[in-house]
């Protein structure tokens, strides 16, 4: 009778311990699979939420009056529009989502509003990402809720802003911030309205450093930017940058913790079940010894059993985990649900790794089975 046949007979004969062991590994594989499959969506969702916190890096002309900057929210100085091109051309920088901005105050009727011109979003070489801000098309504007209310403007209206005919493409909902009194247009339109052709007064960006404990991210970013744009000053919105970095790091740590915890619990469970099984089979193992089974065969009985359980758990677990991720993932990660896709490579990894994992968890019981004194067991009559 071959070892594999003996193992199969034992698994069939002792269904409870077999099912409990298989259940632990299957649950671990299913959890890890669904976790891995939804992790991409989770990360995208986290990034998206963090991105929605807004730009955390502002590059303004070095001569900016900072009192004015903080009181009004924009620089009183301007710099050439091609500053953005220069910054966007530099490789290996620690920021992304670059946008040129021209800010100013404007009177419409007897009301004063903020006018904001935005360029197309740019990315450093090789780091193109989906834009964070959708650019406003030429001859169109987006208006804040207070602007719409006070001017009684609505979507589709053609309005005159300082002698420039513009169409309202969007009325934004109440934001509870200066956005409510803002008119947003394309950079070129706003430059014309403010009479500041080819000028901007700020470049906004998002830093990608995500906090390095040893370095000060502000120093790194300032050094990088001022190397390219020496006549500028970098203002970092530390709260947003830190929140963004911490959230991403927390999310990463949480993912690692969950996977490690699941694997640890499953390993402990499989190990304990294998130990119980080995103790239960003490006289059987003694008998096998008496029948001439060597240490390798005895270890093979325990480890082979674990490998078979692992193999079965890998197949069922990946199928179950994939089904769970595909079924329940989209309701959890509603915006980034499309990132949840079955990964055939995951199945092959599981097929390779799970039997090894189950065997590793059964190493101690296998060692106990091999070193058990058969004479002592067999004389217990």
């Amino acid at each position, binding site marked *: 009778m071959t070892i594999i046949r003996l193992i199969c007979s034992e698994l069939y*004969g002792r269904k409870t311990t077999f099912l409990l062991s298989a259940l632990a590994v299957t649950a671990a594989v299913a959890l890890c699979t669904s976790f891995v499959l939804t992790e991409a969506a989770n990360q995208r969702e986290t990034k998206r939420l963090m991105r929605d916190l807004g730009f955390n890096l502002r590059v303004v002309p070095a001569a900016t009056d900072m009192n004015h900057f903080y009181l009004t929210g924009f620089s009183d100085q301007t710099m050439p529009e091609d500053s953005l091109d220069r910054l966007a051309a530099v490789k290996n920088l620690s920021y992304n989502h670059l946008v040129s901005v021209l800010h100013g105050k404007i009177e419409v009727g007897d009301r004063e509003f903020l006018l904001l011109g935005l360029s197309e979003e740019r990315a450093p070489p090789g780091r193109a990402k989906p834009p964070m801000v959708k650019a406003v098309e030429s001859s169109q504007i987006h208006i804040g809720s207070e602007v719409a209310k006070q001017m009684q403007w609505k979507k589709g209206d053609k309005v005159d802003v300082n002698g420039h005919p513009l169409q309202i493409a969007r009325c934004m909902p109440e934001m509870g911030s200066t956005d409510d009194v803002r008119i947003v247009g394309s950079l070129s339109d706003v430059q014309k309205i403010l009479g500041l052709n080819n000028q901007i007064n700020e470049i906004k960006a998002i830093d990608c450093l995500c906090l390095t404990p040893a370095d000060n991210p502000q120093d790194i970013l300032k050094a990088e930017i001022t190397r390219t744009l020496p006549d500028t000053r970098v203002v970092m919105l530390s709260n947003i940058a830190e929140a963004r970095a911490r959230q991403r790091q927390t999310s990463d740590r949480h993912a690692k913790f969950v996977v490690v915890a699941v694997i640890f619990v499953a390993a402990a469970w499989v190990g304990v079940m294998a130990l119980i099984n080995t103790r239960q089979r003490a006289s059987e193992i003694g008998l096998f010894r*008496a029948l001439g089974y060597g240490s*390798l065969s005895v270890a093979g009985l325990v480890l082979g059993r674990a490998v078979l359980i692992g193999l079965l758990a890998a197949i069922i677990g990946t199928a179950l985990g994939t089904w769970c991720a595909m079924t329940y993932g989209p309701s959890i990660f509603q915006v980034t649900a499309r990132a949840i896709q079955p990964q055939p490579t995951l199945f092959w990894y599981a097929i390779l790794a799970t039997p090894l994992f189950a065997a590793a968890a059964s190493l101690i019981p296998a060692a106990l089975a091999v070193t058990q004194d058969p004479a002592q067991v067999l004389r217990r009559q």
Partner: protein
Amino acid sequence: MIRLRDVSKQYSIGGSAVTALDAVSMDLNQGDFVCLRGPSGSGKTTLLLTIGGMQRPTSGTVGVAETEDIYALGDRARARLRAHHIGFVFQLFHLVPYLNVSGNIALGARNRGNPGEHVDALIDRLRLGHRRYHKPTQLSAGECQRVAVARALASQPDVILADEPTGNLDDENASIVIDALAEFCRGGIVLLATHSEREPEYVNRAFDVSGGLVKER
């Protein structure tokens, strides 16, 4: 075919030394049906396990078949020797609970080229045909012991070491078991340990075991 020279075995139990075998020497040959008689704890089981390569003696040498000293062999070689030359029968049968009668007997025949035929013959010989696919829990004690004897015979060993094989059996089953061992004995050696005063009829050599000392009657 079995040669014991000054075989001693000492255990340490609770800090004090217990002598289970005391300088035992014996020579057994093909056709010997040996009865080892003695009370519980006298050293019978220790002697069987020592001859069977399952328990290393404290001193002395144990020779089985062509091997001068089986404890000079490595673990693998000794396991191979057990598989080819030695069959065990235990009082408590030690059947594998998840294998049927056929499967349990086949365990002993794993080193044979065509075990299926041999297993079938043993099943018929020990009158277990109607129980072929039954599990140990569905068998009587007598049937279990017959399966254990068939398993020991399945490897066609040179020696069968039987520890109280009839201890739990009625007369009819005891007789079947002893008959099967006696039949085997024509071509091999049977060592049968018992604490019973009644000696099986086929026994041609008898030893008294007491306090680790073994004396031929």
